[in-house]
């Protein structure tokens, strides 16, 4: 008994042949067409194409990294430069190679002091080291040449 008889009586008089057709003589030359495709694919893969095929995943990965960098870092650096400056810490060993200006800028940006504070600080420093003219003359009077220093030491 056919399986189909158990399932649907509607299909009792029909065989389980699929209701599809194929174009005339489709199967006659299938072997030739497949062999021709294999031959053409074997010829067409040059060493250069093989290399490109191997490199494709690596290049795709590099391109995706570059894209992520552009999509994340570039907008941040344009729109939030301060945010980036605050979050990028300079390792200690790198400070050896920084110029004096860079160290000052780095100090200013991380110390939390305003420019006003720094200016004020400089003025106080200047006040401390100001020498009046009387002191200067006294100092100059006390200044001795090499002979006087030698005589002083001998005494």
């Amino acid at each position, binding site marked *: 008994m056919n*399986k*189909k008889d158990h*399932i*649907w009586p*509607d*299909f009792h008089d*029909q065989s*389980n042949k*699929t*209701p*599809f*057709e*194929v*174009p005339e003589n*489709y*199967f006659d030359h*299938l*072997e030739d*067409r*497949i*062999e021709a*495709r*294999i031959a053409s*694919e074997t010829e067409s893969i040059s060493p250069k194409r093989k290399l490109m095929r191997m490199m494709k995943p690596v290049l795709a990965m590099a391109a995706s990294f570059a894209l992520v960098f552009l999509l994340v870092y570039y907008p941040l650096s344009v729109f939030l430069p301060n945010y980036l400056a605050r979050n990028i810490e300079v390792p200690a060993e790198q400070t050896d190679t920084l110029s004096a200006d860079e160290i000052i800028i780095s100090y200013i940006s991380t110390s939390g002091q305003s420019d006003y504070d720094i200016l004020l600080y400089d003025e106080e420093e200047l006040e401390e080291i100001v020498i009046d003219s009387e002191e200067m003359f006294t100092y100059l009077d006390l200044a001795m040449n090499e002979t006087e220093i030698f005589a002083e030491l001998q005494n």
Partner: protein
Amino acid sequence: MKSDQQILAEFKNESTKQAAFRQLVTKYKERLYWHVRKIVLNHDDTDDILQNTFIKVWRNMDGFREESGLFTWLFRIATNESLTFLNQKKKKSFIGNDETSNYLIENLQTDPYFDGDDIQRKLQEAIARLPEKQRLVFNMRYYDDLKYQDMEQILGTSVGALKASYHHAVKKIEEYLKSDQ
């Protein structure tokens, strides 16, 4: 017609390799064609998939370890090629899993090589609406009369699960045919 063992032995010999492959294509082309055709329904798509299947067989036959039968190995490649083709179609057309059946039914309706009556068209539509696994199992069992043991090797699913899939498929098709009357 040569046996699978003879074909495999001749394929290993460089001087008879080409002829052995030709024998293999001649032996299995029709069975594989109908297997693929029932999955994708359209002739042109089937032709592409069938050629790709045999090209894959040509490339990988040296690595075939004969743990499974040649026939089940060929069916597995053809099934995978068919499912990969449908998945690529889905991605290209931005269609979801639920809409795959619509795509298949459209294929069925526009196929100039469909030669069935209304009842057969309804049955094909009902099959197209099944989930992928159930559709495969139903076609293999109902049309190709494959044993569950062979299907187990082709689909990598246990016999119990295959029987359950077939049972569910039959129930769903019955429901669809009743509701459509």
